[in-house]
């Protein structure tokens, strides 16, 4: 088992629709893996199964050698899998900094001595070390000046960056990004892909769902194409670009358009 993240024959049906059908993928440690496919091919559903936002009908999911099939989202996160959502989900009435502190909770706790019940439950959230780290990350993603603002005042692109920032503060081993470039202006897309590359150099593994082919092909080491809930082909971007099955998969449902979740 060399794969960091592995799904083994995952199937999931919503009523009569088979969203995932015997879906097996592998993500190598230290890689940037891409997951592409037409709308409705099961990309987000696969993300949901991995991160505990739904129960798979069949199949198993492994993080290294640990079986994480159908664990609750908080447990999956604690084991080292972070994710962002296609439609960004930030805590709108908390400030940007408070958003960061919520996500830092797990990391902060791990650094503390003593058992969970003996700690002072009313201690102020976010110690100085956490706040410093949060500011570093916000600077890294370029939204440090918004730290004291409520998240609801952020633009869509800024929310994407906030979501990436607060996933980063927990230092997960692998980060699942659901359309990080969707609905974001070209300059910001460049920033996001630079940041992903830099984090990857520091050792974070990525699995990315994205419709923007330029983004995926420029960033990923390995791309898997899903069609009807099944991986059709997997390989380096150059191979994928010229594979006729990929063209078939996309031509079957027409051009990529913006779908909702």
């Amino acid at each position: 088992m060399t794969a960091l993240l592995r799904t083994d024959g995952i199937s999931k049906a919503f009523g009569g629709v088979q969203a995932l059908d015997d879906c097996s993928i592998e993500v190598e440690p230290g890689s940037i893996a891409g997951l592409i496919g037409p709308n409705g091919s099961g990309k987000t559903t696969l993300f949901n199964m991995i991160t505990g936002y739904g129960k798979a009908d069949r199949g198993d999911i492994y993080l290294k050698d640990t079986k994480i099939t159908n664990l609750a989202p908080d447990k999956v996160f604690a084991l080292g899998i972070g994710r962002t959502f296609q439609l960004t989900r930030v805590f709108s009435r908390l400030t940007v900094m408070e958003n960061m502190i919520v996500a830092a909770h797990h990391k902060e706790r791990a650094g503390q001595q003593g058992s969970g019940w003996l700690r002072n439950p009313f201690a102020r959230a976010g110690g100085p070390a956490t706040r410093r780290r949060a500011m570093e990350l916000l600077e890294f993603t370029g939204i440090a000046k918004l730290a004291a603002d409520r998240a609801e005042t952020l633009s869509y692109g800024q929310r994407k960056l906030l979501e990436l920032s607060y996933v980063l503060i927990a230092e997960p081993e692998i980060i699942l990004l659901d359309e990080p470039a969707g609905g974001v202006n070209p300059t910001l897309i460049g920033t996001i892909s630079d940041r992903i590359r830099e984090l990857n150099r520091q050792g974070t593994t990525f699995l990315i769902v994205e419709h923007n082919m330029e983004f995926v092909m420029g960033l990923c080491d390995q791309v898997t194409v899903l069609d009807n809930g099944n991986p059709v082909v997997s390989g380096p971007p150059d191979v994928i670009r010229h594979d006729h099955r990929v063209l078939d998969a996309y031509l079957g449902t027409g051009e990529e358009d913006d779908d909702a979740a």
Partner: protein
Amino acid sequence: MRPAAIWRAAGLVLLVAAAAVIPLAKNVTVTHVGVFVLLYVGAAVAWNIFSGFTGYISLGAAVFFGVGVYTVALLSKHLNLAGGVVFALYPLAGLVAAVVAVPFGLIALRVRRHTFVVVTIAVFFIFQLMAYNFSWTGGSTGIFPPFLNWDPNTFDMPFYYTALVIAVGAAVLAWAIWGSRFGLQLRAIRDDEDRARGLGVKAMRVKLAAFVISGFIIGMLGGLYFYFQSEALPEYAFNPFFDLTIALMAFLGGFGTLSGPIFGALLLEPYLGYAQFQISNAYVSEVVLGAVFLVVIILLPRGILPTAGERLTAWRAARARRSAAPAAAPAGPAGAPVAGAAKAGTAGTGTPGSGRA
């Protein structure tokens, strides 16, 4: 953040000082209404710790209140307790209510939003029916305490000051929770519970903890109510109006804020107490209560304090712009629109060209 905390502390100290001297007027009506005001301040604050912070609107707080009432009632009846010792029973009443809150929470907190509200109402009616129908609750005739042989002129005093201690304790607790990791997790759950879980928040445990804390405080107030009113009757111990009233108080002042529920209770309960004394037909005050609820939901959905705070900020910003405009004008024709300048400086840096949505 800091100046707000200072203002809040100053406000609280001022309120407590005012509340502490009111009984010196030696007016029985005033202290009698005062006990109810403090009782409702405590209950609204406690309700807000759970419902306001998490966004789960509970209409089952009267369960805790009633459990507190009956806990003290049954103990006093069977142990024949009278005198100062009754005040020692309140924490016990809170504890029993907290124990009840655990299974109640484990069931109700599995569902969200409207379903949660309906489940809390259902649990409330189960408790009310039990109080009416079990033999050991005294049924509809209720339970009456052993006679307290106290001077009627000062009878209310110990209740008044105990209620004050509980209300202040609840407010301080709410404040401590708000800024803590626990409070932050509650507020994250309010904004997006699934997202919070995906960031490692153990949502059920956190929600349940807030539910139990809220139940403990309201249970203590129920215990206080029993000796103060000298009765445990199912229709008053498990009173649906109790739930509606504290929810309205929180919404009126500012749902989910720290000062809102206190403000709402201070505003509303004196009126309700007055109405009880002055308006012979009880339904009039209830109709007014319903009308106030509608007005608040339609005109001030966020409550008086948040709306007022926003107006104040907007007014200050407008005044700052007006005073800045003449100064900026001579600087040159190239000056950016003053209103946007400050904000653009903040928003633009990290995300060139993206602006604000």
